[in-house]
């Protein structure tokens, strides 16, 4: 733990923020106010935060359909996100994108993406811009175990290697691709397949913030130094269904419960941090309180946010047409 207390506080807070954001959505969702598909990230918090805590303002990330965690970790405004998820005119996407398309270009967050494998080629493009700038900035994409079988992801990996771009592929194996186990759809294994393109892959425990932070740090440093692309492979689990409403018929009865009890990312960081005497449980609880209040306020505000109208439907298709 070579991180400063401030860094650790920030990381813990971000992980808690994601966790509570998602747990709250899980509670709110059945009430019927939230439209569309909602894919929750709970269980994988250490990955998004472990990666993003390594980033600078000039870096880029691109996310997946399961985007809330990456957005929050990258610093998107939770209230703006919540408004978007509730379809409000003042949400980050003006209510036009919803949960699956949250982005904030001002934060170098190039969007959640509803197309599995859609983001990776785009992130490679952002890496072209990073390289052109020559300021050591990097581009990071997140890719699920299921997404790793999409042709566009292979193309993106190969392209990044061929052009020696400052690009980091974050592979998140949460064990499932919708209702199918990760192992079923993957010929070979993720690490070997990725290395075969000629890039290094660092493995991490996706439940452990410090493990991910360290692996991602190596990958990002590798890119910043001009050594080209690399990947990290982090394994965790998702606590909820593929989307809200999924009965999860494909999972063993106690699978999630076991993970929650033995591996939980928030539990892990708390144990480590309190164990090392960096913060007391009370100090961390105070962070939790702050986060919970923020989420409460975001949900209240979003539930009462302004409804988008025809002007919003018709605008921003083009800049000039």
């Amino acid at each position: 733990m070579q991180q400063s207390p401030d860094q650790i506080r920030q990381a813990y807070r971000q992980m808690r923020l994601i966790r509570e954001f998602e747990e709250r959505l899980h509670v709110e969702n059945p009430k019927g106010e939230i439209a569309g598909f909602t894919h929750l990230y709970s269980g994988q918090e250490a990955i998004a935060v472990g990666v993003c805590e390594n980033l600078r303002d000039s870096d880029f990330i691109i996310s997946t359909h399961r985007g809330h965690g990456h957005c929050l970790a990258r610093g998107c405004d939770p209230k703006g996100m919540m408004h978007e998820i509730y379809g409000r005119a003042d949400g980050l996407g003006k209510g036009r994108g919803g949960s699956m398309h949250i982005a904030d270009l001002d934060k170098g967050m190039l969007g959640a993406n509803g197309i599995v494998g859609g983001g990776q080629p785009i992130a490679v493009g952002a890496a072209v811009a990073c390289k052109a700038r020559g300021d050591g900035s990097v581009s990071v994409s997140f890719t699920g175990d299921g997404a790793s079988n999409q042709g566009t992801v292979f193309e993106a990996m190969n392209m990044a290697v061929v052009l020696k771009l400052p690009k980091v592929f974050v592979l998140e194996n949460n064990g499932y691709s919708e209702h199918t186990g990760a192992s079923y759809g993957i010929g070979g294994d993720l690490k070997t397949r990725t290395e075969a393109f000629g890039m290094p892959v660092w493995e991490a425990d996706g439940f452990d913030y410090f493990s991910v932070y360290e692996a991602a740090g190596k990958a990002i440093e590798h890119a910043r130094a001009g050594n080209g692309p690399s990947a990290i492979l982090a394994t965790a689990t998702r606590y909820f269904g593929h989307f809200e409403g999924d009965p999860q018929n494909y999972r063993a009865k106690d699978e999630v419960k076991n993970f929650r009890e033995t591996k939980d990312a928030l539990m892990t960081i708390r144990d480590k941090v309190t164990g090392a005497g960096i913060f007391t449980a009370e100090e961390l609880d105070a962070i939790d309180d702050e986060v919970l209040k923020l989420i409460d306020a975001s949900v209240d505000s979003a539930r009462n946010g302004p409804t988008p109208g025809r002007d919003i439907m018709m605008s921003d298709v083009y800049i000039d047409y």
Partner: protein
Amino acid sequence: MAVLTMRDALNQALHEEMERDPSVIVMGEDVAGGSGGTSGNIEAAGGIFGVTKGLKTKYGADRVIDTPISESAIVGLANGSALAGMRPVAELMFADFVGVSLDQIFNQMAKFRYMFGGKAKTPVVLRMSMGAGMNAAAQHSQTIYPMLTAVPGLKVVVPSNPADAKGLMKQAIRDDDPVVFFEHKALYSKKGEVPDGEYLIPFGEADLVREGSDVTVVALARMVPFAMKAVDKLAEEGITCDLIDLRTTSPLDEETVLESLSMTGRLVVVDESNPMCSIASEIAGIAASKGFASLRAPVEKVTAPHTPVPFARELERMYVPSPGDIEAAIRRVMEGA
């Protein structure tokens, strides 16, 4: 006749055809579900919309194939197995995923027979859910049938109700040409009477679902029930319409449209797609060419706007042509002449 949802009518068609013909196979992401899972459930999903329920349990893993997320390879599985003698029914979970598989659809399956001297037979059915109605936003709500209707070599099916869905699906599976079968997400749970057992609807025959003398209304998929609402409402006021459900856009039943137009002289076309190069454009264009002599008023095209599909409930509702929009168009066309 049983009363079934469109989902169940499609499921019934698949069950009947798999039972009848061992060369029928099914493939796609989570068409069964549960493979590699920890519950031991060999059919944890039965399709994300439940259309393929029970198939793997009944016909086994060799005929009901769960796949990785690799849409080009999924359509390729269908194309190659069809060339080699099977009758595959492949699923693209969402029509929007043609983006990652279009080559196999428009450069491959559509063109084999033509390029290969008339020898190839590619009896693929490519199922895909489409349309707005679930607030699934811009990448999961498109109605891309115009794009595929334009492609020579493909047949394109767009059912509006459970009975048609069954009859057209059974026809699609037995058809020797490649068929793209669009299932509107917002119709899956709609119920209707569905004939039991053997029931086939030939392609290229539109259905005249309402008869009238003032206006010809042409619609497809979810726009048919919406148009019915508008037409039925106006009938109470004495404005009567022919309402034509296209059922397939390729082949397109021009005759039925033109015949109706020759009686009414007025045309409203309702299409959930974006306006440009749409089915609405196509039918309006046909009216301007082959139907010109009949036309007594400007054609009204009722479509979604030239925007992506927006997410929020209010926005999506505004985006999709509504019964009110259709009603207004019918009124306008009545005033036009």
